[in-house]
């Protein structure tokens, strides 16, 4: 048994940042655990002998993280899993929302736009986490980066809504039967994904995405305000949730 408090705050911060950095570089989580634990052992012993963190990681923690990252293979399988979850997850949410308004119909532009924005959000998230963990940012700068990360997809989604009104693309009508089938598919998808990935990430994100708009829709606010507010709450919540998950992983 060991107490984590044996490590100085600076070392703990380094290990946390390293974990986030490697995670957002798409490395295998068990390999991340291994190297972080190995460095934890090293830092503990070094600190007991009065050595500074710099003596271990050098003067640029970012350069050191990169060196480690370069020697670790990317975990494409897990990332494929995450990407499928995020893109289809964001779809299933839009679908769940629209189901309350009757039979579904989407233009090709809407369908393609969702996939593209989902992709941008994933790339943006990874880039932002890598940037935050690699550079010693102040809390405010960190919050700034995360705000940009959450605002960009919102901007794109709002843009997509207007763009979709301006541009005519073929519309796909699902019909009543198609809509019911789609609804069932969503439920199966959510349950299946959560079971397969052994994570609550999708239900939690779905709830964050669906509930604010639904609940705000029950209030007297006008539609535009509801849209903006709920999107802010949803993506802000997801950003915070992902960040907490990353931070919490080191405690496992």
């Amino acid at each position, binding site marked *: 048994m060991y107490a984590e408090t044996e490590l100085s705050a600076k070392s703990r911060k380094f290990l946390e940042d390293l974990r986030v950095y490697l995670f957002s570089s798409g490395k295998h989580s068990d390999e991340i655990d291994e*190297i972080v634990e190995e460095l934890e*052992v*090293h830092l503990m012993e070094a600190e007991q002998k009065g050595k500074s963190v710099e003596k271990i990681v*050098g003067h640029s923690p970012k350069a050191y993280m990169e060196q*480690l990252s370069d020697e670790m293979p990317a975990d494409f399988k897990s990332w494929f899993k995450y990407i499928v979850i995020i893109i289809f997850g964001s779809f299933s949410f839009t679908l769940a929302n629209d189901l309350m308004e009757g039979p579904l119909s989407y233009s090709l532009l809407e369908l393609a736009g969702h996939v593209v924005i989902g992709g941008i959000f994933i790339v943006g998230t990874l880039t932002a986490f890598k940037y935050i963990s690699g550079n010693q940012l102040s809390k405010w700068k960190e919050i700034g980066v995360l705000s940009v990360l959450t605002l960009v997809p919102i901007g794109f989604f709002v843009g997509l809504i207007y763009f979709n009104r301006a541009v005519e693309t073929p519309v796909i009508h699902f019909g009543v039967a198609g809509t019911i089938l789609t609804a069932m598919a969503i439920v199966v998808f959510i349950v299946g994904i959560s079971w397969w990935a052994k994570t609550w990430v999708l239900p939690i994100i779905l709830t964050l995405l669906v509930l604010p708009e639904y609940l705000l829709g029950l209030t007297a606010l006008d539609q535009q305000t509801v849209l903006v507010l709920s999107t802010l709450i949803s993506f802000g919540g997801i950003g915070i949730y992902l960040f907490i998950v990353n931070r919490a992983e080191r405690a496992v």
Partner: protein
Amino acid sequence: MSTTQMMKGILDGCLLAIIKDREVYGYELAEQLELYGFDALSEGTIYPLLLRMQKEELVTSTRKKSTAGPKRKYYSLTAKGEQELEHFIGRWEYLQTNVNRVLKHETASDESQGRG
């Protein structure tokens, strides 16, 4: 070749040589290097090297409990690692001999004919 690149190849060999003596974990390895005089090095430098050597199957590792703290990761040489160490020693001796000759203004033929 930059100094750091040259150092990396040399450090690889030194790590293999230290690990060959006995099973060691990271901190011990860094300490040994320091004892031998590599004291300007950041201690963490060894970990990217160890990661690569493990990927190349030159070393294997086992995790063992320690009295205090989390498990330590102990490294030992594989057969391939021992071979690589042999090669390194060969390369090093070749390099060392030639560099010394250059510095002492000797040529290879001087030595084979006896000095003269």
